[in-house]
């Protein structure tokens, strides 16, 4: 499980995150909401080891982020908000490229299956010809190559059609239920968050989001 203990994050004098504590159980999907600039992406970056917390501790399956950073990274899958794939490559080449650099080796068949599980069937297609939804799916599939226990997604469904949104949502549910993965993701789409997530963490003081979450009738943690 993921255990976050009183983390704070400041940039200079500006405090972005203040004493945030929560835990995530295997198989749980957690939504992160909040107004722009509230610190959602910062929290995700801290959880993804892309930024260090100013204070506080984080443990992933008893492994401390502070002491075993490199080991912890092997268990994290991070899906950046900007699509991070090689535009000049095909879907297959992108998957093979990142598999070669990954901690875990996978056969081409396994990589293809990973894409098919996400309804991404254009294996040989060049990425530049894919739709935004397909690119988002590939962006996510690459992050799953090393079979991480914790999946962190920064607005994974932004700017895509409803069908692709639904397919990504279904896949995330499958990952949580069937593979016991811990999933945390940020989104501004409250419908998506409320249907998909088991719990919601609201960051920031804006009452607008808090009211929406009350309406969603979910377990809410606010910071």
């Amino acid at each position, binding site marked *: 499980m993921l255990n976050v203990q009183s983390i704070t994050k400041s940039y200079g004098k500006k405090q972005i995150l203040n004493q945030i504590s929560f835990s995530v159980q295997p198989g749980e999907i957690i939504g992160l909401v909040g107004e722009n600039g509230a610190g959602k992406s910062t929290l995700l970056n801290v959880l*993804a080891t*892309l930024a260090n917390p100013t204070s506080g501790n984080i443990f992933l399956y008893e492994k401390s982020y502070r002491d075993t950073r490199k080991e912890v*990274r092997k268990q994290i899958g991070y899906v*950046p908000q*900007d699509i*991070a794939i*090689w535009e000049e*490559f095909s879907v297959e080449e992108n998957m093979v490229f990142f598999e070669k650099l990954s901690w875990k080796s996978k056969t081409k068949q396994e990589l293809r299956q990973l894409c098919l599980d996400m309804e991404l069937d254009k294996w040989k297609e060049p990425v530049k010809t894919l739709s935004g939804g397909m690119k988002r799916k590939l962006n996510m599939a690459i992050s799953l190559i090393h079979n*991480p226990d914790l999946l962190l997604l920064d607005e994974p469904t932004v700017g895509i059609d409803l069908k692709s949104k639904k397919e990504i949502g279904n896949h995330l549910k499958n990952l949580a239920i069937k593979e016991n993965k811990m999933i945390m993701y940020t989104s501004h789409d409250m419908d998506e968050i409320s249907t998909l997530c088991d719990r919601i963490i609201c960051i920031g003081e804006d009452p607008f989001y808090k009211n929406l979450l009350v309406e969603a009738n979910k377990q809410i943690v606010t910071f």
Partner: protein
Amino acid sequence: MMSIIQTRLMHWKKHWISHLFWFLLPILATVCMIQVTNVVQEDSKIPIGMVVKEETGLANALVETMKASPLLRVYELSESEARSRIESHELDSAFIIEDGYEAKILRGSRNRLLTSYQSNLSFAYTPIREMLISYVQQDTGKAKAAHTIINLQESLQPEATVSFDEIIAKTNEIQAQENLLATTFSFYNDAGVETTDGITIWNTWGLWAIFSILSTLLLSDWLMKERSSGLMPRFTFIRFTYKQYVIQNLAVYLTAFLLFDFLSIAVFNQLLDENINFELIGAIISFRILISTGAFLVALLFKNNYLYYGVSFILVLFLIILSGAILPIDGLTARYPWLLDINPLQPLMDQTFWNPWLVVTTALVSSGSQKERN
């Protein structure tokens, strides 16, 4: 490392034409420039006519000497033909070796040996005439010396039987051995001194070095392209750290560059008669490591491709002007000798492995990788 090679090859496969072009640029551009220059140089030789009115050894030798000049294109023709071609300005000037030339030379006479023609457009007549006179004087000088030796022999050692022809033959032998007009001096036990025929405008390895720097800088743009592609967060979740990834890629590029460098050595040896020796190979390896690590460090400083390309071209222009690889900088280095010490191309041109800049760039690259490891 195998994974890095495989992933790099995936990139190269996508841009194989442009990569092959840039990898081959130093070879192609150097060979082309030198061959084109040779053709232009051949075309710009001054055309002159030589009319030989007697078939003797000295007359023919004079014609052959003139033909051997890298500045002249010599046509052997009749007097009337020479005159008509001068009138039509096809020839700059013409020189007639008169009948009795050899006999007069052997007698030590220098009068009326040659006749010459020029037109109002004969711009090179005077220097060619002086050149020809110097060769004739050389022959008359030899004959005069031979006569003096024979006279001395007759008065001092009448029993000696050294003939005029033997003296001339010995003189020619000594001239060929010593080559007094073009002797290159060297310290005792120094490496062999090379002498070249003709006039060489370009320093082959200097030219190659400039094109190599340009192609290395332009091929190092992968660093910027990959950093600006939004893929940086991915490198946190791969087997390698980003620094390990880029440094291992640098090693892949360095290996590929070295393969093409060895190809350059073979091509230049075949097409341009450049010697192959261990000093040259060592100097090229050292130079290649220097420019690959240097370009890598320069590319790390930039985020914008076009700015980087602009700076690369300016850097190359700067090196063309100040390195002495293409343009001579003897005057500058005579006034500021320290320029030779700080010139990064000098060790290549001197064909030595040791290059102080190599220490700087490799230290910077390896300190970066050490920091990452810690």
